[in-house]
């Protein structure tokens, strides 16, 4: 079987990337294997668990449900980039203070998904936070601490 190759140009965490990729390669495999950005994780490879969550053109997506070839011209952001810019520093601090992660495997995706909710502004109630995070599976924490951390950041941010 000869692989179908596609040339793509995109930015990843603000850096320009030009690569030739197999057409079948998922975005998360591309980020991990070709770019060495291993902060995006692979959990289920069928769009359920949320471990591979990244942002494409500002929108939170599943890196396992999108092909790298679809990202030609796109602006991709991963946990590494979002950490380096300081965008979620307060959220990360709250996660640490509240021990809202244990093994940490779901955490990059959880942080990006939580940030998506927080960026809407206001203070969502606990059930709204739980609803928003429902597509990101955590097997360690039982979610309570994560909800606490997100809630505390929403309160702090809303006080400006």
């Amino acid at each position: 079987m000869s692989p179908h190759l596609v040339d793509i140009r995109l930015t990843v965490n603000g850096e320009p990337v030009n690569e030739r990729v197999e057409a079948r390669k998922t975005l998360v495999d591309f980020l991990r294997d070709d770019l060495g950005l291993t902060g995006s994780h692979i959990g289920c490879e069928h769009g359920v668990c949320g471990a591979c969550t990244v942002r494409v053109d500002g929108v939170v997506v599943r890196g396992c449900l999108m092909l790298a070839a679809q990202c030609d011209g796109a602006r991709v952001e991963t946990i590494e980039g979002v950490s380096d810019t300081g965008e979620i520093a307060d959220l990360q601090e709250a996660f640490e203070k509240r021990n809202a992660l244990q093994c940490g495997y779901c955490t990059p995706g959880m942080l990006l998904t939580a940030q998506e909710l927080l960026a809407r502004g206001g203070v969502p109630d606990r059930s709204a936070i739980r609803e928003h995070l429902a597509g990101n599976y955590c097997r360690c924490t039982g979610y309570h601490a994560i909800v606490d951390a997100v809630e505390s950041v929403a309160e702090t941010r809303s006080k400006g």
Partner: protein
Amino acid sequence: MKIVQDMPPVLSALDRPNSYIGRSVPRPNLARLMQGRGQYVSDVVLPRMAHVAFARSPHAHARIRAIETGRAKSAPGVIAVVTGAELARVMTPWVGVLTHLKGIKSAPQHALAVDRACWRGEAVCAVVARSRAEAEDAIELVEVDYEELAPVTDAETALDPGTPVIHPDLGDNLTFERRHEAGAPDTAFAEADEVVEATFRFGRHTGVTNEPRAVVADWNPGEQRLTVYHGTQAPHMMQNLFAKHLALEEHQVRVITKDVGGSFGIKVHTYADEMATVALSKLLKRPVKFVADRIESFVTDIHARDHRVQARVAVKRDGTITAFEIDDLTGIGPYSVYPRTSGIEANQVVNLTGGPYTCPNYRALARVVFQNKNVMCQYRAVGHPIATAVTEGLVDLAAMRIGMDPVEIRRRNLIADDAYPTSGPSGIRFEQLSHHASLDKVLAMMDYRALRAEQARLREKGVHRGIGLASFIEVTNPSAAFYGVGGARISSQDGVTIRLDAQGAIICHTGVTEQGQGAEAVIAQVAASAFGVPIARVRVVTGDTDNTPYGGGTWASRAAGIGGEAAWQAGKALRANVLAVAGSILQAAPESLDIRNGTVIDRETGRERIGLDEVARVAYFRPDTLPPGFQAELMATRHYVPRAWPFAFTNGIQASLLEVDVETGFITLLKHWCVEDCGTVINPQLVDEQVRGGVVQGLGAVLFEHCLYDERGQLLNGNMADYLVPMACEMPDIAVGHVVSPTADSELGAKGAGEAGTAGAPACVMNAVNDALAPLGAATITEMPITPSVVLRALGRV
């Protein structure tokens, strides 16, 4: 804000200046995990590394007539295609038995099936290629000629004479059987006012670690050494097993475990595909990587539970429980899992049933049988959820039969808090438990009376709420009694080495491992407290058999209690060594000195005498200035293993408040409470989060998680869309409280806390559902998971 409320002050007897014991210190390893800078085995890439994928049996039971590998071998990127027979020349098979489980038997299991596949998903052929994708492409070209054999899938009929025997050499399909009798159960049942019987069914489920099992094996013929990057809970155990089955010596094998994306007991066993990966590296003389994909995880990660327990309880009209009897049957797949065996869960069910209560009369039968499904073995809270649900289910049924409140029957039968030391009807020994204090505390936390009143009010409006309780006991801090006495080379002792670095910080190396539970934080807290430095000046090294004391790793809630005590003793020993140096420098008696906040002080006055950096400078760079014959020893190692008690039992109680929609059968969890007693609480926040995480795994078991098989042994829901795990939106807030009864076996007094949540959650939710439905005349629900259809069936609506 919750962040403050979740850190209750827990007093500690370990009264050192600047003690971190009992404080919610943040874990040192969180920042990098949150920045995407973790180092999971899935992330490991080595020079010349190849990837392996496996052809797996599509049949539950089949003879392998032939394997045609020619086309696969010539596929793009393929390095090797290896069959079971070929790999067996490199790696010897294993048999999962232990001598202390009398009569347990199993058959030799190979890294890749040879001649016969015994479950759907068993690996039969390996393809190694440049990339995982190319390996998977070539797997499609491996042609296996199978002759289907009759599968044995139903545990209930596995022992029938007409059922095929899976391993003919073993004579029958019985893996293990245990019978136990205490007191006079027949008399008790005959003299009871009421006898209540029920059959409890527990669905098969699995761990679903977010990071699947992963291993990178690197055999270096130049060094004659094997380095294995392994997502495991027990690096030294795996070192032994890799060496043993590859005919190496243990010093030739190094197991490195960095970050692990969830374990829960899943990653403490020998997996054939991981053993095959290691053997392939030896065969091919290059690094080979295997990361299970999700379907592979579902069909090969150990499954757990799958018990059918016929049970009865004898009770007097005054509420006195006089006897328990259980008949437990569990099917464990075609092999007893190596090296811990698949007999332990049933054995634990026998040990733990009735455990919180004074009842002396007990009869138990447990039978473990082979079947052609994926293997089963120890998963978080081994046996506890079954024993707890059976016990607590029976207690509630007995209360209902005699018209007594569930709280009252527990008050009358729970072992009194001043009755210790004592033992349970199975012979398990309790040092100090606190069932009544825990019951009182949980009732206060939940405001039991108010909830009952609210329940009654809402009932009139057609809202059906249920309140359920479940007392439990938990096995923690295991001694050699768990595995070592049975011949397994699984260390129950553990060690910590602490070294003073040249600037006065300390580096701790420990055999316990970090799975996300916070072991590194706990070791750091204890070492900092015992030695006397700020915690920021402590670094902890785990997960490397070349660089840590020999130890057992993480399982059976042992890391804090056993590793923590070793850290305490090592910290004290290093303090004494450092004070000897300081005394020599200062011309002072070492006993007159102490270390506080990184500085050597006068013990009496607290006056600062010399910094640790200066002590280290002198000892390392100017030892010539120390008195002749004086040798500074700035590294100390201590080990610990519990000796007075085979296990440090803990106890607790959980409570659930939920609402049942009687039209749809949907259950909404409103609130959950857990009070537990793990002795000295080293880090309240970490204990609480272990409890919460454990509770939610128990909630998954009771409501959602189920490995569904058809009668031909095919797993029907091996993906995360169809196999349901708890999501954030359906989980309740979980309030956690503590009672503190330290163990006297260690100075630290800490017991384990990792499995308490999982042990009790299923039972109290089951009791709460029945509490909600009983007034509607519903049949009592005694099966898990309690899906909407189970609820509707109980209500007679479907």
